[in-house]
């Protein structure tokens, strides 16, 4: 494997690879075990780097307020009323979401025929720290069920895998509509997911 391929892998990992190149690389990933291993290593490295970030930034409140005020996305109240039924994401969200919509199109268009229909959540979507209940903030008392979880033995499924389960479940739950849009809120939650390993099914 040459350096050019490695650079492309790194760019793909960061979401910065052009769509044509990404299409080619994803197709090659399906058939090249060595390339696949390198791809996984890049994500392990990225996971490790991201885990060095603090769980809760001290200026969280300021970030929230700044996010609300500085968010360049036009709100529903500010956008023009569209008359057509088929309004698309670009008309609706605008701003940064336009780029997101483009990314959707690019992502979908780069799927080769016969290739998988979906991409798994990649990289570290959230830091999933293995902790015991003693590490939790005292303001939140845990149920008896939760207390019995505090058995940390060995490796869990990876953080990104666990987070993928949580995120897909939240998004899927929102599709049911039975709790309104609230499950979508949970799909956007970043941290933490508390992971524990059970010695046996009885231990959990």
């Amino acid at each position, binding site marked *: 494997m040459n350096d050019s391929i490695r650079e492309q892998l790194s760019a793909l990992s960061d979401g910065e690879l052009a769509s044509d190149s990404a299409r080619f690389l994803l197709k090659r990933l399906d058939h090249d075990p060595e390339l696949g291993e390198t791809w996984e290593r890049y994500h392990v490295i990225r996971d490790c780097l991201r885990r060095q970030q603090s769980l809760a930034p001290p200026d969280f409140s300021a970030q929230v307020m700044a996010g609300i005020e500085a968010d360049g996305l036009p709100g529903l109240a500010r956008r023009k009323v569209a008359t057509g039924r088929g309004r698309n994401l670009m008309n609706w969200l605008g701003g940064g979401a336009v780029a997101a919509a483009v990314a959707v199109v690019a992502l979908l268009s780069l799927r080769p025929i016969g290739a*998988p229909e979906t991409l798994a959540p990649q990289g570290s979507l959230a830091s999933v720290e293995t902790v015991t209940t003693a590490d939790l903030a005292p303001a939140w008392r845990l149920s008896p069920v939760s207390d019995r979880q505090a058995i940390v033995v060995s490796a869990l499924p990876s953080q990104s895998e666990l987070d993928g389960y949580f995120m897909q479940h939240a998004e899927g739950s929102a599709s049911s509509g039975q709790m309104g849009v609230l499950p979508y809120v949970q799909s956007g939650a970043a941290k933490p997911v508390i992971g524990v390993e059970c010695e046996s099914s009885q231990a959990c």
Partner: protein
Amino acid sequence: MLNRMPNRCRPVLTALVLAGTFEAMAADGLSWLRQMQQAQRYSTVEGVAVYAHDGRIDAIRILHQPGPDEQGQFANLGGDRRQLLRSGDQVLVQMEGATVGAWPAFARFESADADHVGKLYDVREIGKDKVAGLEAVVVLAEPRDELRFVQQIWFDRASGLILGNVVLDQRRQPLEQVMFTTVRTSSALASGALPEAIPERATQASSIALNLPAGFMFVAERRDNYRHLDQFLLTDGLALVSIYREARPAPTQGDFASRRGAVNLYGRQGADLRWVAIGNVPLPTLRELIESNAGP
């Protein structure tokens, strides 16, 4: 209700929805659930909600427009600034500007009705409150068995939309809370986003035989071909559970568990398959689900 109406009657009910007269229609807790499911199909929602869990708070900015071409953006305003985008039948996850995941959305499906909820929970209105400046009705749903959590739900008195909820364990200790801090709603109909007619509920079957906990029903499934993963969605009308079956050989077998707020996860790694159950129910409910489907 609406989907069974003749087309000529729908504008009438729609007008009622827009007039915001749900209070008169919702005589009890179950009625609020029924009205909410209708209301959210007609209302665009913009706002910020906080998700308190495990001693932490996430603030999520919400833009959501229902309809057959459902659109939505759900962005975390702090931390890693992840956001989930919904555009029609596609879902996209971004973090700090980079796309990190994508998958197809579930096809539209009908969930359990309120009458079914009434068999499993004692649902009643317990008071009034104010959320994000809106008058709210508070409804408590207490399960009749140990398979479920207690839920307390805030409904907008005017629109019937859900404004927040708290999930409590069997000892009435809070596990998580989601609540709007600011919210603005408007009619999706006014902007041309007509609601999709939901087909009559039919008895659905999963592509594989599943043993379900009492009171739960299978409602939808999807396949992630990239991960060789099947996701089956189950509900009792309030609680939602996903069970994943993933082709994932592993040299080490065993069980694992995880949790975020009221959402528990229980998994079993076998030699060739990994089973994972996840949902806002007690962990033993998930463990039984795994044991009855994955085997020892």
